[in-house]
């Protein structure tokens, strides 16, 4: 007879195979990474440009990114999109603080033909007045819609205060859309796209000679020198609230400047981060969602930048329980400082984290992303083996030490909107 109250015996993961993509030097500063081992017909190509939001006005970098396929002297944007679509390709582009990424998703047989179309479009952007106007109007409307969301308002305010006194804290304003010069767009495009390629990533079972062709197509955009990033950040401590009339929920953001993977406390801190708020059974989820029912979700993360990182707690709660939620967050941080994590909880978190790492190394796409997560910092996949050791060896005392060092309420930027 089956004893249903007993959990089946658990086995532990003794080894994870991390696979490094092959590396090609386009120039001294610009690399191409190639993960060939894909067993199906899918493929992906990413172009990373030094064209993030912190090196110009955020609105300029965002608009130029949106205009990459807006037409050339020879082709309209409609023609360009038609050609990509005819080959079944998907084009995506996005901007973050420190770079801009253009991605193509396609069946492998079509990857090169699509790249030819995209490369020609990017190389010859005409900045047609009608296209520029249209995009400005679209983006402005999208911005106004977002400004109706408490989560967006709070996140904006958080960014401004966490990166106080640096270009990383520059946030988009409605008026930014009203005074845009073509000259600014063009020079940003020339400096940061046509001379700004940082790296190329190819995932898919494509032939070696195609890699050479990819380099021929985009290599000329390689950034002549290495990208540089500012390093000194400090967050504005203390609470602030933005009123949003009629909101049913209040968005809360709590966090501070911290560090990235290059810091010696990073791996251990990630265990503390998981315990506090980075999985379904975390302290914050168990308390604020599963015990009190204040929210649909609450989570923590460590955002990483080239020279730094930031810790963030984010949630949306019923508007009448904002104060109670902040108190509980404070309480959970204090508990980690004052009491040792018990062995059972720590074991669970260790097993969970290693299981999730195994999942992040599952398949060529996941492995490539895992690699990119360390490559940015000049690290290798060996980092993850170290991280497994750190998870296996961490003690409750060490977690308490880190909570005291990094999770002091008085060090936090606390923002709410609602």
């Amino acid at each position: 007879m089956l004893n249903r109250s007993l959990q089946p015996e658990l086995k532990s993961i003794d080894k994870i195979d991390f696979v490094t993509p092959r590396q090609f030097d386009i120039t001294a500063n610009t690399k191409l990474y190639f993960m060939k081992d894909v067993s199906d017909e899918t493929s992906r190509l990413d172009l990373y440009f030094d064209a993030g939001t912190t090196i110009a006005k955020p609105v300029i970098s965002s608009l130029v990114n949106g205009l990459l396929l807006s037409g050339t002297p020879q082709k309209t944007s409609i023609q360009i999109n038609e050609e990509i679509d005819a080959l079944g390709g998907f084009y995506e582009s996005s901007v973050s603080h420190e770079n801009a990424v253009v991605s193509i998703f396609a069946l492998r047989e079509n990857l090169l033909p699509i790249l030819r179309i995209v490369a020609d479009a990017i190389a010859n952007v005409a900045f047609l007045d009608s296209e520029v106007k249209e995009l400005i109007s679209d983006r402005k409307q999208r911005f106004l819609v977002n400004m109706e969301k408490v989560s967006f308002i709070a996140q904006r305010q958080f960014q401004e205060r966490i990166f106080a006194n640096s270009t990383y804290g520059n946030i988009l304003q409605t008026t930014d859309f009203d005074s845009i010069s073509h000259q600014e767009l063009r020079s940003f495009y020339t400096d940061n796209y046509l001379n700004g390629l940082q790296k190329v990533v190819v995932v898919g079972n494509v032939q070696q000679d195609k890699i050479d062709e990819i380099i021929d197509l985009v290599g000329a955009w390689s950034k002549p020198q290495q990208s540089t990033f500012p390093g000194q950040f400090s967050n504005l401590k203390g609470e602030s609230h933005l009123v949003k009339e009629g909101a049913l929920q209040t968005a809360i953001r709590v966090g501070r400047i911290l560090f990235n993977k290059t810091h010696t406390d990073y791996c251990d801190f990630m265990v503390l981060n998981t315990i506090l708020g980075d999985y379904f059974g975390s302290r914050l989820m168990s308390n604020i969602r599963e015990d009190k029912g204040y929210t649909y979700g609450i989570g923590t993360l460590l955002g990483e930048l080239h020279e730094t990182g930031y810790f963030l707690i984010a949630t949306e709660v019923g508007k009448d329980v904002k104060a109670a939620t902040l108190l509980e967050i404070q309480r959970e941080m204090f508990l980690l400082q004052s009491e040792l994590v018990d062995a059972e909880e720590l074991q669970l978190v260790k097993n969970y984290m290693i299981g999730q790492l195994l999942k992040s190394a599952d398949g060529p796409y996941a492995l490539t992303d895992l690699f990119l997560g360390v490559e940015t910092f000049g690290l290798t996949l060996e980092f993850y083996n170290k991280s497994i050791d750190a998870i296996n060896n961490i003690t409750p005392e060490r977690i308490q030490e880190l909570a005291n060092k990094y999770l002091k309420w008085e060090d936090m930027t606390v923002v709410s909107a609602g």
Partner: protein
Amino acid sequence: MIHFDRFKLDNGLTVLFHKDVTTPMAVVNVLYDVGARDESEEKTGFAHLFEHLMFGGSCNISDFDSPLQLAGGESNAFTSNDITNYYDVLPAINLETALWLESDRMLSLSFTPKSLEVQRNVVIEEFKQRYLNQPYGDVWLKLRPLAYKVHPYKWATIGKDISHIEEVQMDDVKSFFKKYYNPSNAILCVAGNFEAETVKSLVNKYFADIPGGIKPSRVLDAEPKQNEFRNQTIERNVPANAFYYAFKMPERRSEGYYMADLLSDILGRDKSSRLYVALKKEKQLCSEINAYITGSHDEGLLLISGKLNPDVNFEDLDIALWKVLRIVKESSISESELDRIKNKNRTSREFENQGILNRVMNLCHFELLGDANGINEEYKIYEAINANHIQEIAIEMLQPTNCSLLKVKAS
């Protein structure tokens, strides 16, 4: 070709096994053949609330998530108008823990009052976060009852109204479980690098002794044929006017479904689509416009939605939009345009089946529709669609008398 084995336990549980030798992970997916369409009109939102309760402890295991996390895995679920689907992803070496957990909650829940109270609040916050506290968030709460007058698709999965969630009683929870959560109403799929015999014996070990129950019969009120143009305007505090044209479309199991799917792609999937080019690029009427389908099992909807540019009125958009629809009905689509649509369709399907979790969820879904092998057959149906089919389905569907229009006016 996605391979799978299928077997059935004596208690009626359908089991699929999908072998994938490339992954160190395992997926256990359980689809229950119950969704918001099975609710009564007085107690909507219940199937979804129930999904939350499935994580609140079962008869022999006080907490669902902790043992799974201890095994290195994680879990989630979703509810639609048609189905409720639960999945666990964990290291393959610990597969047995997921089977143990899923089988115990299929056997019975613990039904603790605390779980009901807390999840009721969580769902109310979800209701606010997703539907009430977002610009345009309540559109589906308005559009469904406009498009459906009888069929239970007239309410959203989250429920018609928060009060329905507030009023749920424990007895409702228990009878819902008894009726829908039994082996004969479920499809289980296990995937990973295992031998079929191992999976079979483990599934038997954990699921075979669960009482089978009776597969509930589904008799839903059929939606009468729509014979009128429906039009509603709501005023909201939003920055832009928005429009939602909803056309009735064939049910999931019919060939017409696939034609309508391609028709929606032609109209508004990509930046080369008809509506995007004509209404956004050429006429500058809207800032965004898309066409898509709900994918419902019963008679579904093809949606055309978007936001107007400042200083454009609804009437101008309406005239231009119907003109595009008229062209699709009156003249046959070219081979090259149809090829383009099919190529995009093929790429997205390849990517969709790239991950093991998606493959498993799709296998279960196709099994519910009649045969898991549908996952391998679907492309043939798309390939066989020609320009005449597209024109016929366009003529059939894109009529004002088959349309419900919701306008959100900025106040």
